[in-house]
């Protein structure tokens, strides 16, 4: 059963990654990576995604399976944007989520 859940998370991650890739290539058609400021909507997606994936036990009213799936989808969307984009957002999202995890577990 554990394998089935992981398979679903993987599929959701891959769908998110493919959509993230398509989205970022539709925004950035340049043949080079543009150095831009942090993209706020993408940052929000990254933070929400990492929080849902790592801290799903904070929201007991919704089944953890659904929360992790949504989180993994958002993580995949941001982490697999066009190479060069979404990196800083991913790192910030992970650090924020890890910080919350540490606060709630220590």
């Amino acid at each position, binding site marked *: 059963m554990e*394998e089935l859940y992981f398979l679903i998370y993987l599929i959701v991650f891959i769908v998110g990654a493919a959509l993230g890739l398509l989205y970022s290539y539709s925004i950035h058609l340049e043949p080079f990576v543009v150095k831009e400021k942090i993209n706020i909507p993408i940052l929000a997606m990254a933070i929400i995604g990492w929080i849902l994936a790592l801290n799903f036990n904070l929201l007991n009213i919704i089944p953890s399976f659904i929360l992790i799936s949504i989180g993994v989808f958002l993580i995949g969307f941001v982490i697999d944007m066009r190479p060069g984009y979404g990196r800083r957002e991913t790192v910030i999202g992970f650090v924020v989520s890890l910080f919350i995890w540490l606060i709630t577990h220590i």
Partner: protein
Amino acid sequence: MYNLMADILINVCLAFLFGSLLLGLHRKVMARVQLRPGPPLIQYLLHSLKFFFKESSWPKTISKPFYIAITVILCAIWVTGIIVGPVLKGSLMIIFGIYAVHKIVEHNSGSSSGSPYGKLSCVRAVFSASSELLLFASVALLYLITHTMDIGAIITYQQVHGPLIYKAPLLALMFFMIIVTKAPYSPFSITTGKDIISGFETEHFGFLRGYIMLSESIMWYVLLWLFLTIFFGPISLLWIFIGMIIITIITGFISAITPMLNPNHSVMSQLSIALICAIGTIIPIMI
């Protein structure tokens, strides 16, 4: 009610998808070490799927039945690897047999294409059978320590005696070298060296290449699963996944910063590592 077929199907899909992502991560790590942006994580998976929808072509020089059958055999053996490993936790001897057949596939895939690159890779596949010595030695030494070839029994052994990585670190290193040997662009991957284009895979196009890529991702998953299960004991699937990601990053670093060895040096290095690790493992057992 337990359904074996469903279990096999889920594990094969899991191995294919996660193995593909890991190989994508491997390329990404290599690229970042070499100061390139690198491809997206899902690039390897997209490539694998793409080949299933591309037109297949047949070079004039091929031995057609063999040329086609060899990719099916490659796929079949690694699906068997999933059944013997993660699903049934069966015998290590079957895994050793699968690994041996993989070498035969590399050899015959190269020779059946009729391409000079394939033929060179075919010769190198015979050379690189030395990596099987690493596997054979590690399986034999595992038997000496645990008195069993059964993966399930080895897991139980570790439940009682603790992870084998502490008891036989050199044995773990020997097994790790097998993983490095199978990593893309590794110093020991002489059969697919860039000096011979893509080696035994050079002449395989379309869905046949798709089968090869699918098999390679499953193979990567099985090898990493074996390493983590045999040396780290009974760990959950989440920790196995985390371990796989860490090992892939390590092998990505190794592949990025080491040049590919020539066949003679590759064989001698593998034999030397096998010898040192085997002696280093046997002596404490005898004492």
